C-alpha cells in the first residue's frame, strides 16, 4: 500500500527515503522528487496552498495505487504540504523504491504528472503588489498523454 500524507509541516527527506526502503534489501533503486516554492522574479513574499481535505488524500491514494499496479514498487511515499510557505520551502515529496531504476524513475514521474493535474491543490502567490492565484498550465494536461 502507498503511504500518503497531506500536512502543513515540513518533511525530512533522508528519513522518508529510509522508511520507504525499509529493511527490504531487494530494493536496488530509490528515486525521490522534491518540489519547492519558486521565486522567479525575486518578489515573492509567500505562497499559500489551499486544498480539498478528503478528496486530496483520496486522489493521491488513487494515483499511487495506479502507479503500484503499473510498476513493481517495493515502496511508494507521497507527501504534499498545504498552508503558507516561503520561497525555497518544500512543497511536495515523492519517493519510489524498486528493484531496478527504470521502474522507480518512471513511477515517480507518473505520480508527479498525475498529481499536477488531478490532486485538488491551488497555489496563491503573494507579492508586495497583492495576491494572485497561479494559473494551471496546459502542458501539465499534455503530460498525461504519454501514460495512456
Amino acid at each position, binding site marked *: 500500500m502507498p503511504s500518503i500524507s497531506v500536512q502543513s509541516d515540513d518533511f525530512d527527506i533522508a528519513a522518508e527515503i529510509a522508511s520507504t526502503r525499509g529493511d527490504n534489501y531487494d530494493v536496488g533503486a530509490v528515486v525521490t522528487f522534491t518540489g519547492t516554492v519558486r521565486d522567479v522574479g525575486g518578489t515573492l513574499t509567500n505562497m499559500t496552498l489551499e486544498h480539498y481535505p478528503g*478528496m486530496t488524500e483520496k*486522489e493521491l491514494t488513487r494515483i499511487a495505487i495506479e502507479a503500484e499496479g503499473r510498476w513493481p514498487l517495493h515502496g511508494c511515499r507521497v507527501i504534499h504540504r498545504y498552508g503558507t510557505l516561503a520561497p525555497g520551502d518544500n512543497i511536495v515529496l515523492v519517493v519510489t523504491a524498486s528493484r531496478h531504476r527504470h521502474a522507480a524513475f518512471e513511477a515517480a514521474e507518473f505520480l508527479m504528472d498525475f498529481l499536477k493535474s488531478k490532486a485538488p491543490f491551488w497555489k496563491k502567490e503573494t507579492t508586495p503588489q497583492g495576491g494572485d492565484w497561479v494559473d494551471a498550465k496546459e502542458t501539465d494536461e499534455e503530460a498525461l498523454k504519454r501514460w495512456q
Partner: protein
Amino acid sequence: MQLVYFSRVREQIGLGDELFELPNDVSTVAELVAVLAERSDGYATALSDMTFIRVAVNQTHVGLDHPLKNSDEVAFFPPVTGG
C-alpha cells in the same frame, strides 16, 4: 446537498461551502450550474465559463453530464495547481 467551492471560485462566490436543496427538475451538474448562476453576480462570474471550471461529485472528478442526487457533495474549482 453540500456545495463546496475552492480557490478563485470560493472568492467570487464569497463562500467556502453551503447546503443547497437540489430542485426536482435538476438532474445533472450542467443543470445545477445553470440554476446557481442565476443566484447572484458572484455565482454568475464564478461559473460563467465552465471550460475553466472543474467539478467533483463526492470527491471524484466528473464531467458536466454527471447525474446528481440531493445527498451528493458537489465541488466547483479552477484547474488544480499543486505539485
